[in-house]
């Protein structure tokens, strides 16, 4: 395959890529000018719909369709919330976009707000991204001074303000309604849907919530057209499948020689990412398991590394989905129990506590896994973990948001794909007690 010419990352290696003059010298803000000088909001929505751009934040919902759900005749205000709370473990592509090319992000926001008739956008930036926060603020200030934000932008009658809103280190704020609650000054407890944010979102007004990378694609679609966008990626295979079109930022981390973020057409395989772009598995070792798209998505085995990482691929081998397309490699020396320990500790720490099955399930799973890791596991514990994994989440219908599904998938995949290793670990580390059912030993106390 010929090398892919980057689109989203085209600017980032330029000197001062984060500044307005450099962005404009590379053709920046031509798309918003084109939109303001001759397109209607509906034209823009139809264009993005036709491009089949799907959300890059994890769920893959078609962006144009989402925009079309906002009421057309609403007296306003309408809000846009930009999800820059990138917190899915192993994911850092939005950080790079915000730090290195904040104007590309802002241009996408402007076009999205024009299309949805939003007059204010709040970028919810996670606390851990101070450089992104400063660069975005500087970029907003540059735009205001240049007449690209504020009242009557470029004489078009379009008004827009973009505000930064800083998070406070809580993973749940990446869930769109948790984000809205947090923006409103409350604890970030996700809302029951419906009503969806498009009808009743921030401050009880119609709201569109988009991810940074999704919006960064928008100016390029306006500039280059639908045909160009749909020439990249994996076409739809049936009328129900919206396809996997466009460029995607893949993060590669863990046990590779060269952890990095690379832009490629949707549908590259994990093996190609690891070998060609990540410099191969480190220390001359082999991959044992690979996380396909952030911690929540579960695991690929070595044999599954050739599935395409498009929106449909990971699901075909039992993973939750493409997620954030953040690939994490674990080499052959990593015990699966260590992976489970790390994953379950994360979700227990980040469960917001609103839904009992998630709050209790993630916490119990984490403690059962800690007990196994400490050499006090029983084969029965695997049944307990299985039962937790099947009972928490949106899919079994027991929780309000998908955090618990993300907590369940590492368990499900580890239990189905590495069960032999887990049983062996329990038998080896607890030779006298592994078959015991009752009484169970005390659970490990969580200290965080």
């Amino acid at each position, binding site marked *: 395959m010929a090398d892919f010419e980057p689109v989203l990352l085209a600017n980032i290696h330029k000197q001062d890529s984060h500044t307005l003059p450099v962005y404009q010298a590379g053709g920046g803000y031509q798309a918003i000018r084109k939109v303001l000088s001759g397109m209607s909001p509906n034209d823009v929505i139809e264009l993005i719909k036709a491009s089949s751009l799907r959300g890059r934040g994890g769920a893959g919902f078609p962006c144009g369709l989402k925009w079309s759900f906002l009421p057309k005749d609403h007296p306003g205000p309408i809000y846009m919330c930009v999800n820059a709370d990138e917190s899915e473990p192993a994911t*850092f592509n939005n950080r790079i976009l915000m730090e290195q090319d904040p104007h590309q992000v802002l241009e996408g926001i402007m076009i999205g707000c024009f299309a949805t008739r939003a007059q204010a956008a709040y970028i919810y930036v996670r606390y851990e991204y101070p*450089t992104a926060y400063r660069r975005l603020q500087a970029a907003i200030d540059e735009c205001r001074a240049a007449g690209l934000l504020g009242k009557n932008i470029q004489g078009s009658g379009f008004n827009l303000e973009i505000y930064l809103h800083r998070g*406070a280190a809580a*993973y749940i704020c990446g869930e769109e309604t948790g984000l809205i609650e947090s923006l409103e000054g*409350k604890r970030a407890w996700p809302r029951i849907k419906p009503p969806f944010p498009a009808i009743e979102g921030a401050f009880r007004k119609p709201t569109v919530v988009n991810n940074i990378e999704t919006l960064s694609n928008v100016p390029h679609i306006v500039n280059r057209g639908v045909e160009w966008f749909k020439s990249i990626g994996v076409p739809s295979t049936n009328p129900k499948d919206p396809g996997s079109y466009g460029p995607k930022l893949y993060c590669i*981390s863990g046990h590779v020689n060269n952890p990095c973020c690379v832009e490629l057409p949707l549908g590259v395989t994990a093996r190609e990412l690891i070998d060609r772009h990540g410099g191969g598995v480190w220390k001359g070792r082999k991959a044992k398991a690979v*996380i396909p798209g952030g911690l929540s998505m579960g695991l690929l085995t070595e044999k599954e590394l050739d599935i395409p990482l498009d929106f449909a691929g990971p699901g075909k081998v039992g993973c939750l989905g493409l997620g954030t397309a953040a690939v*994490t490699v674990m080499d052959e020396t990593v015990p699966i129990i260590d992976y489970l320990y790390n994953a379950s500790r994360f979700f227990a720490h980040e469960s917001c506590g609103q839904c009992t099955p998630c709050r209790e399930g993630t916490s119990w799973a984490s403690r059962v896994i800690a007990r196994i890791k400490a050499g006090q596991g029983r084969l029965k514990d695997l049944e307990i973990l299985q039962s937790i994994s099947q009972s928490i989440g949106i899919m079994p219908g027991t929780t309000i948001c998908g955090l618990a599904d993300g907590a369940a998938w590492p368990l499900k995949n580890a239990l189905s794909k590495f069960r032999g290793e887990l049983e062996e670990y329990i038998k080896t580390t607890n030779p006298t007690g592994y078959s015991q059912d009752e009484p169970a030993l005390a659970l490990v106390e969580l200290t965080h």
Partner: protein
Amino acid sequence: MATTAAQPVITPQMRAEIEAFFPRYPTRQAVTLPALHIINEHLRCVPEGAIPELAQMLELSPAQVYDTLSFYQFFKSKPCGKVRAWVCRSISCSLRGGEEVLEALAGKLGVAPGETTSDGKVTLEFGECLGLCDFAPAMLANEAVYKNMTVDQAAALATQLKQQADAR
């Protein structure tokens, strides 16, 4: 003898910074997080005494402010060190030795994760995925990023953190 009223926790300067956020949002309550960040940046914590004062500014009940404040474990009631350092313990950093670095650094600083050095300079904490996986294992210390750390560097990292605190 009349008792002197306690000094307010929220100083006029903090108050002005908080009020500057009011026009950005349709509700006062939405200024809760920005205000907590402003107080935290000035005091390196959000003392309990700030809660009723902030509630009054935002036209909320103190319970509403406290409810939000307590949800985000980020805000502490006692001052953190001049430098607050988070060593990432999530999967990509953990796979490359992040947890061992955290332990070694804690040893060099003489604190457990979550604690502040006795000289008040450094608070050491674990972080969940800092989004620095391309530099794993990584640490965020105030706004400085420490990349590709190793256990062998623990003593040097401890010194650097103290120097960063002195420079503040």
